Every structure is written in C-alpha cells, then in structure tokens.
C-alpha cells in the first residue's frame, strides 16, 4: 500500500523529472521552429531568449528528458 500511495503522490506532484521533461519538450519545439525560420540550427542563446530561460537551464532540461522516468524508479526500486 505504501508503494501505491507513493505512486499516486508522485504522479500528482511537480517532481523535477516531470517539470524538466515539459521544458525539454518546449525546447525541442522551439528548436524546430527556429531551424525553419533561420534556415540553420539555432544557437542555445537564441532558444534561451525565446523561452525566457537561461542556456544552463535548457541544457539541464534536455539531459533530464533522456533519463528514465522517476515513476519507474519509484515503483520498481
């Protein structure tokens, strides 16, 4: 039961893993958009400015999106 409770709680709360994944999705979309617009791959500053994030935060979000979702770790640990 403890595990199930944790599962429900984690699903509903703003865990870092989830929030970063949302940011990573925005970054991916913006990157596609700017690539079309500029006709070249955008720099990280160009994306950062559009999304009003720091370049460092963008790097962090992109990396986090690649990692397995924490729910798996929570449920199967």
């Amino acid at each position, binding site marked *: 039961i403890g595990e199930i*409770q944790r599962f429900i709680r984690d699903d509903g*709360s703003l*865990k*870092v893993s989830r929030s*970063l994944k949302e940011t990573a999705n925005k970054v991916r979309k913006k990157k596609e958009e700017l690539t079309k617009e500029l006709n070249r791959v955008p720099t990280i500053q160009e994306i950062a400015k559009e999304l009003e994030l720091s370049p*460092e935060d963008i790097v962090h979000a992109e990396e986090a999106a690649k990692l397995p979702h924490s729910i798996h770790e929570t449920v199967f640990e």
Partner: protein
Amino acid sequence: MNTNMMRFSFSSQSRNEAFARVTVASFVSQLDPTMDELTEIKTVVSEAVTNSIIHGYNSDPDQMITIICALSDDEVELIIQDEGVGIPDVEEAMEPLYTSKPDLERSGMGFTIMENFMDHVYVHSREGEGTTVTMNKQFNRSKAMSQ
C-alpha cells in the same frame, strides 16, 4: 547506503552563477526532489556564490570558488568555499538585513534566505583565509508530513 559525491571549482565571475546553480541542480536531480525544493537549492547556491564573488573576492574575477555536494538517500550536503577576505564577525554577518556593502544595494538577506531554505547552515570563516558555508537539507519532508 546509497552515496554519491562531486566537487567543482570555477572562476569568481558572476556569469558562472548560473553555471554553479545548474551544476548543483543537475547533480541533486538524482534524488528527484520537487520543483520547489530544487528552486530553493538553486537560490541558496546563488546567494552563497554571489557572496564569495562580491564580498570574499571583492569582484576580482581571477579567483576560484569551490562547491562540494554529497547525496545520501534523501539528503543533500552542500559546501561552498572561497579563499577570500573572510568574515570578521560571523554572528553579526548572519543577522537579517546586515550588509557590509550597503552602497551596492545589497539586501543583507543572503544568509537569512540560506537559513530559511536549508535545514542547517554553518559558516566557518577566518579573516584573510576565506569562508566556508556548509548546508544540509533533507528532501521530501513536507511531502511525508502532509500525508
């Protein structure tokens, strides 16, 4: 017990503040804290790093700041160090609103913010030798209590 640690040093330049914040945040992300907890950690890193740059090194960009971070289970220990001028009276420095640089429009709230966001804050400093701020925080506390 599951432990992991890292240590990093960087030039005392304000453009490295965001770098320091994210480096700690990405390491701490292993514990999958909530967004609020991560924001608190990032804020605390900013405050301590800014202090080392502005106060410890008087804005000399060629000095080094060191951060050590250790994780164990749901706890983080964070140490932020400089080899700058040091603090003559730590107790006074930690008082809310105290600042030695009112001319720079400092709020004097750096240490107060650190004490609010972390479970423990310990400052070791010697004039002419530098300052070490050691902080601890346990994650998921409020979550556990709210059940």
